[in-house]
């Protein structure tokens, strides 16, 4: 193989790594694509560059995520990330959820996630394909920023959250930028 065609092969492999079967599957058939009934928290993340939005709703019961779901519009990467996130977090503690959010950011930016988080990461490790596509890292982390806003947002009273118009106010600025 000459250098040029080797390079071409490498580029195709990058794309294949980014758009793995599991990403495409979750992107096209997102799991937990709904609003959690009697959710205790809700937050929206949006990417002003492309207009993508995800809204995360969760029901937290004594420090554990009893149910979590999302709705929204976005690219394959952001939707797959959100879908796998909801799968991974159901039944987990808030502490684990926060750690997993950090671990996912590590995975996406080319750092090693802490070994203790590997079992929790599971299929989320497939997001590592974005490393070769710096402008797409935000897509992968968007739902996780929304998650953190959701978990850190004001508690809902009696399961009924007062949602500001479009969920705008509870969105943290970090939800839109990747440092």
């Amino acid at each position, binding site marked *: 193989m000459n250098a*040029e065609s080797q*390079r*071409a092969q490498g*580029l*195709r492999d*990058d*794309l*294949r790594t*980014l*758009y793995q079967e599991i990403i*495409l599957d979750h992107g*096209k058939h997102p799991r937990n694509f709904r609003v959690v009934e009697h959710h205790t928290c809700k937050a929206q993340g949006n990417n002003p*560059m*492309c*207009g*993508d*939005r995800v809204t995360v709703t969760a029901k937290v019961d004594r420090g554990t995520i009893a149910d979590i779901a999302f709705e929204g*519009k*976005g*690219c*394959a*990467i952001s939707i797959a990330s959100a879908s796998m996130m909801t799968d991974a977090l159901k039944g987990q503690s808030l502490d684990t959820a926060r750690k997993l959010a950090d671990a996912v950011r590590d995975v996406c930016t080319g750092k090693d996630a802490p070994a203790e988080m590997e079992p929790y990461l599971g299929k989320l490790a497939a997001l590592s394909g974005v490393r070769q*596509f710096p*402008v*797409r890292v935000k*897509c992968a982390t968007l739902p996780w920023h929304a998650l953190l806003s959701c978990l850190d947002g004001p508690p809902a009273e009696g399961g009924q959250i007062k949602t500001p118009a479009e969920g705008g106010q509870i969105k943290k600025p970090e939800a839109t930028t990747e440092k």
Partner: protein
Amino acid sequence: MTAQTQPKIFDVNKVRADFPILARRVHGKPLVYLDSAASAQKPQAVIDAISGTYGTEYANVHRGAYYLSEMATRAYEDAREKVRRFINAASPSEVVFTKGATEAINLVAHSFGRAFIKAGDEIVLSAVEHHSNIVPWQLLRDATGCVLKVAPMEADGSFNLGAFAAIIGPRTKLVAVAHVSNVLGTILPVREIAGLAHAVGARVLLDGCQGIVHQPVDVRDLGCDFYVFSGHKLYGPTGIGILWAKPELLDAMPPYQGGGDMIESVSFAKTTWAPAPAKFEAGTPPIVGAIGLGAAIDYLNSIDRAAANAHEEELLRYAMTALAQVPGIKLIGTARHKAAVQSFVMEGAHPHDLATVLDRSGVCVRAGHHCAQPLMELLGVSATTRASFAFYNTHAEVDALVAALRRAQEVLL
């Protein structure tokens, strides 16, 4: 027919050689640059003018009583004259240098808007506007209590002149619309719009960012009151834009920013303004940007522009036909009168994913809302992919786009 009047064949390879970046590769593939509506590439003549100015002729303008400053001032003012001629304005004093179209619109909103638009007055925009021709008017609305109205468009992206006529009236003080839509390519019927607006006593601002790129512009013939555009979309540098306005408006409008260069005399008790355009050019202006834009205009005058525009139109036709044949692709923006900009969506593939895959084939397209979120909402999509064509693009590049789209379907679907 004599040899001189025979229509010339547009030699795209000849003009491509004028744009050095077009020879480069990205990701190991030849660059296929289909994002000129976002920003156009620069001919060597513009690059040379910029580096030549910095290299041998640079000083601040309108200040030093020495040779170099005189030269820089002359070059800067020559650029203004080149713009004047390019848009057929009556006088160079009607041509204000800004840092871009966005600043030009903000200038009008701030200066004209706050002086002449009051609570209850109406400003009419079109459905296809770029955020830069929406948000400045919203800021003005919040400051003054004026009312914003939006003229609708047809499903194919064409402007609905009848509906526009129905929503303007005696309260309409300003109509601010794009000359050409950056998303749909629609060429708005701006002469008719200006005629109707003037009949109710409204002023007309045209956002010419995309308009001036694809056709000759004669501001007096268009019948508008303000015309704005950005240099970087017209093959010139970034950081330079143009506000053209009728002289009586520039005379009546208060300054936008205060500072050096825009005054006649300053005392702590009272300052009097210099006449336009200096009144609106506070501080050290984008000197080399203006000179670079002048060089871009010289370049455009040196090629057969009619043939270049015809080539762009032909590329658009070719691309529309080719894209429509890709399964799952839907063209967005199919108005009869349109410029060389084509948005589309592909079933099952988000524009961002498409753009990522296309990029790896060397094909640069824009994906997203194109700074026109209200339009996206009307279209019922959150984003589109957009290919935009300049005269330096080729049929082979359209073929490369289509081939890359088919490859993207293999990766994404």
